């Protein structure tokens, strides 16, 4: 029996329900804070203050968000093709290699604005390449993409450890990282944007790749909803049988979709590697690939949802770090719990409140009650 409820208007579907999920997630998180003996309201205040309280804090929040926009888009594109790309972490990691190789080669001879497009290509190419192998195995051999992309995360990690303690490490250095890039391998910071709004920012990692992330969000929208390729990806994602019927080659779509996804994940590396640390470090991805899954779920795989969802997670990262600093009882792990709760309610339990909200809408606003219900009664 399908649930006999009305369809929701778009604003409720994309605005109200995520908001309710979020409020519940924070309420439960508040209870956890209470259990460790801290005041949840003060904790919330510190968190919001830590994320948005000053120009520097906002800049940090947006810096984290940048990474999440890239990985969120990566997961979303794969979702549209009916694929679950869990390999964003590894694709971003290997994408970092692309950035580093470009920067190490050209930073002494080119200005940053010439290195940047090359680094974009490098990151995208290596991310896409890393996604190509699982995609090929899925398309031609039927190896399940969830399994293979997870395994490729581990392979990526091992590969990068090898490269960073070996070939890429400068002679004589003790740290598992590349040399620091010169001026030509560093992206300009966007702190001046904050200053336009009257904030003062002494230093933050907030950089130009944020703009690239927004451009990518727009491009993803354009490709998915406005091109023939996007049409084919969505058809394949919704109904592989219909795609077969329409003469859309499944293998081709699986491979192209995963390579776009991998390229987006790979570009995430631009933000920390070229925008902040100016060197390739061990484990620079720090889970952003996985956060991308939550961001894509929460943003309903639409760029207009992914950008705010990424900013929310940026806030949790930045505000959470401040919270751990201010409240000694709340450790870094507590922050992970809060983030986990958000993921739980926004992602896994996304539909928990839907039926009751739909019933509510049906009773107060009959016109919004869709034909979907009408259809179901049929003989």
């Amino acid at each position, binding site marked *: 029996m399908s649930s006999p409820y009305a369809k929701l208007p778009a604003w409720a579907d994309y605005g109200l329900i995520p908001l309710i999920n979020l409020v519940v997630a924070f309420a439960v998180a508040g209870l956890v804070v209470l259990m460790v003996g801290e005041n949840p309201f003060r904790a919330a205040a510190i968190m919001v203050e830590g994320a948005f309280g000053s120009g520097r804090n906002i800049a940090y929040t947006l810096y984290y968000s940048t990474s999440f926009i890239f990985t969120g888009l990566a997961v979303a594109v794969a979702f549209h093709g009916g694929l679950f790309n869990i390999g964003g972490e590894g694709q971003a990691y290997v994408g970092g290699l692309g950035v580093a190789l470009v920067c190490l080669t050209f930073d002494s001879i080119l200005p940053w604005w010439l290195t940047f497009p090359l680094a974009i290509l490098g990151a995208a190419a290596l991310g896409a390449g890393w996604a190509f192998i699982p995609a090929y195995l899925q398309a031609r051999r039927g190896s399940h993409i969830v399994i293979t992309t997870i395994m490729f995360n581990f392979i990526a990690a091992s590969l990068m450890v090898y490269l960073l303690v070996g070939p890429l490490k400068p002679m004589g250095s003790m740290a598992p990282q590349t040399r620091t890039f010169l001026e030509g391998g560093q992206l300009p910071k966007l702190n001046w944007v904050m200053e336009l709004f009257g904030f003062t920012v002494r230093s933050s990692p907030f950089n130009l790749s944020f703009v690239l992330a927004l451009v990518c969000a727009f491009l993803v929208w354009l490709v998915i909803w406005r*091109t023939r390729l996007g049409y084919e990806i969505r058809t394949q994602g919704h109904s592989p*049988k*219909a795609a077969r*019927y329409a003469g859309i080659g499944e293998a081709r779509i699986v491979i192209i979709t995963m390579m776009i996804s991998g390229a987006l994940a790979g570009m995430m590396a631009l933000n920390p590697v070229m925008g902040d640390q100016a060197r390739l470090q061990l484990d620079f991805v720090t889970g952003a690939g996985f956060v991308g899954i939550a961001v894509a779920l929460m943003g309903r795989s639409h760029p207009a949802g992914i950008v705010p969802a990424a900013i929310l997670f940026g806030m949790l990262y930045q505000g959470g770090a401040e919270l751990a600093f201010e409240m000694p009882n709340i450790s870094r792990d507590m922050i992970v719990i809060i983030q986990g709760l958000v993921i739980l309610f926004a992602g896994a339990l996304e539909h928990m409140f839907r039926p009751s909200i739909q019933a509510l809408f049906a009773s107060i606003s009959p*016109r919004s009650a869709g034909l979907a219900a009408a259809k179901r009664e049929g003989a």
Partner: protein
Amino acid sequence: MSEAAIELVGINKSFGAVHANRDINLEIPRGTIHGIIGENGAGKSTLMSILYGFYQADTGDIHVNGKSTAINTPNDAIAAGIGMVHQHFMLVQNFTVLENVILGAEGEALLNKSIAKARAELIRLEKEYGLEVNPNAIIEELPVGLQQRVEILKALYRGADILILDEPTGVLTPAEADHLFRILGQLKAEGKTVVLITHKLREIMAITDNVSVMRQGQMVATRKTSETTVEELAELMVGRRVLLRVQKEEGKPSDFKLSVKNLTVKDQRGVTMVDNVSFDVRAGEIVGIAGVAGNGQSELLETIAGIRKAEAGTVLLDGRPIDVTGAADPGELRDRGLAHVPEDRHYVGLVLPFEEYENSILGYHDHAQYLKGPFLDIDAIRADARDKIEKYDIRPTNERLKTANFSGGNQQKIVLAREMEKDPGVLIVGQPTRGVDVGAIEFIHKRLIAMRDGGKAVLLVSVELDEIRSLSDRILVMFDGRIVGERDSEASEGELGLLMAGVEAQEAAE
């Protein structure tokens, strides 16, 4: 007049703003067979779901055997002596008949006693109603007709006095359907009450005592079957006069458009589904393929359309081969003038979450008229979709609506509009009117005839024998993957029914 087995008084049920059942009053006398007919969406299933406890009515009372009874769950319904046989069987495929029958009524932790009891009961029921079925047979090895019998046994085993059957003959051969009707007659003779939900008017006329007609959530009429006619019932269902039999001229077949030679197709398990099949379809004729569902028609259609790979054989389209054993591409076949209306419009012919206009180009999305470089020409696509909506009377007339929100008949029209408007030389059609209401059936049939009269070759696969007989110029009957006979459109239903059941083939083998 005997006492009412079921009496529904003032039943109302709304889903949001949709009033699915409106002030329904219905009295079903005990010991009768009562038909309920209506178009898709008329509210038949909702009403039966209320009676069986899947939904609760907003207002209204249910009386069973004269007593007001609250039915909140299917268990309440079973306790009140109501049993239901669903359209899609609820059987555990790898259990035996006996195990399925006791499912949910197992009794104690150890099964030996309840199995013994069930076995004795099954033997009794078998004697009483002619419901023969081997208690130890595994469900998945039984033909559909017997599986349905197990469903009926399940209901009777639970003490059902009132049996609701939802579209019971959709999956049966005419012979199996006849057998089912004999069983129902037997049940009636034993004093049981049968409620039959169907959209096949002929069945209503054949076996019911009374018939109630639903339209748009309301019970518009109840008639004694002996005092009504098919024409009257059809008119009551639709609310206007309906042409039940398609008017058509004699066909004028000319050139060979589609030739299938020695085609053999296996499914994923390696079972031969299409076995050495050969036939031709000419321009200006409709060739119908009759057969009980699952005898290879679907695979045949899919193979010709390039979706499924053949094991051996050739298919010629306009004299040029289709690479059916290799890399046939549905997109390329479309360009060569082969249009395909698939059997399963929900998952193959349409992408239900898409907006209507997006589906109006499925398969033709690479045609230049819909593209601007790599981009979709959204304006052109929507204008084109609006044209088709008008031309094919698709409702609601909104190309931005999600396809899932259209009714079955309108969804089918979306597919037909897309495939026919490209003016293909060959049209292959699977189950064009499955789950489609009477009004739309008439429209679709007229369109198919118009295609034929326009000099196109039409290959039609349908499990509705009436449809095959009224549309086809020639009828091929498929049984067990083979074409077991060819008849003209004058062939009697009985003759075709025997062929569909494989009788002739078996005799020939012996």
